[in-house]
């Protein structure tokens, strides 16, 4: 099963506004390897090659915090989604 299919099994309540913000200047200029592209368990980060910009599909965020730690250049500003939003685990 693909990871995006796995995410459809979880319960999400998606806010209109993203709780993850990317500083594209830091991301482009400072970060060579872009760990977020492969370390996110939900595989939510992708590189838009047209404008060389990392984009994040925040709606499927598992709220694990891995990207916040792995982005050692500090380009990712990650906070919890607002109350009442985000992933709702039914097993945990």
């Amino acid at each position, binding site marked *: *099963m693909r*990871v995006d299919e*796995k*995410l459809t*099994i*979880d319960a999400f309540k998606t806010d209109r506004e993203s709780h993850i913000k990317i500083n594209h200047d830091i991301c482009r200029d400072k970060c060579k*390897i872009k*760990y977020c592209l*492969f*370390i*996110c*368990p*939900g*595989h939510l980060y992708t590189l838009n090659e047209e404008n060389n910009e990392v984009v994040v599909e925040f709606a499927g965020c*598992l*709220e*694990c*915090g*891995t990207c*916040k*730690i*792995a982005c*050692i250049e500090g380009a990712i500003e990650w*906070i*919890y*989604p*607002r*109350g*009442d939003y*985000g*992933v*709702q*685990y*039914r*097993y*945990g």
Partner: protein
Amino acid sequence: MDKIDAVIVGGGLSGLSCAYKLAEKDMQVIVVERGDFPGSKNVTGGRLYLEPIKSIVGDMLDGAPFERKVVRERWSLLGDDNSISIDFTGERFKQTNHSYTILRAYFDRWLSEKLIEKGVYVIPKYRVDDLLWEGDTIVGVRAGEEEIYANVVIASDGVLSFMAEKAGLKQKMKPKNYAVGIKEVIELSEEKINDRFNVDINEGCAHLFIGDVTKGMFGGGFLYTNKETVSLGIVVGIKAFIEKTPTIEAHALMDDFKDRYEVGRLIDGGSLVEYSAHIIPEAGYNGISKLYGNGIIVTGDAAGFALNMGVTVRGMEFAIASGIIAAESVIKAKEAEDYSEKTLAYYESKLRETFVLKDLYTCKDIPAFLDNDSFFSFYPKSFPDLVEKIMWFGEEPKGRIGKSLWGEMKASGLLSFKRLKELYTLKNL
């Protein structure tokens, strides 16, 4: 303004335990939880060890929705295409309430309902955004438009603890101090679980894997049996992950693990019912934050109370114990009518007398010891290879077993100076 006795940020195990003990003393306490209900944002591997906390929990866990009592422990070293396992069981584990597997969405929710019956306000669906200050003292929290004033704020907001950070109590979060855990909950009938894991009704198995599961990176795999599901997952150190070349995708690592012959057989026919992930504190004693300040106490994962002992990973009983001790500290502070760090220092000194800081201190050198690819690559490859060579019978006549074994051990480097030194270092752990 009116202040309540305590506001607790986060309805996880430490926050709820703290609230429970405060409610027993008729203290006014509010728990603010950002999920739909306590437990809905929480993830565990995982199992809860009850022995360390049995003398302090009182009746708190009476009737708790445990999944299965762990009576069987397994460890597997996974080579590239072979493996070797240890399977342990013992009467002592069967006869006592040693450890149980749990699922947090059930467990935490149940505990919060017990709290509500005790008159505690548990407010779900609110994210705490900030702390309220009066000079250098914390006097409450702000959640959206709401302000809640309290004599003490209990930061029980998990490993990412934004509250401890805002209070200036937290170390900068570095990749080497954290691991990422990825977990799948897989539905499997009770009967199949009993058969496949060789356990009786309500009995369970805890199975840890190291080696190929993380492709040699710091970490491992786990499988815990629940009533009618299994919790299957992997844990990888974030530093090891970002240093790995060529890069590996985290979600693909999980799939490779499930595709292993050893694992696939155990979950065959099961259906995926949840996919989750969370970071885990891995630094042990050296990663612990400052535990209190004027008007604030930090508990559980927020404080860094998690312990990778190599053979098992612990955290939840530390969370419960720290929550209970935090409650005792708030009670002391109320008696003294002083909520400054001078009085709240009781929290740390009491933790030092209990297994929480004692065990963490005892194991303080383990993270550095485990920061060695021997445990995640060399040993998991060498031991199964050795067994494979012993058990393989081909066309050539077999040499003398002892002689071949000795030769293979020498050739693999198992008898090298480096390995003997590693073995010798073990005595200091």
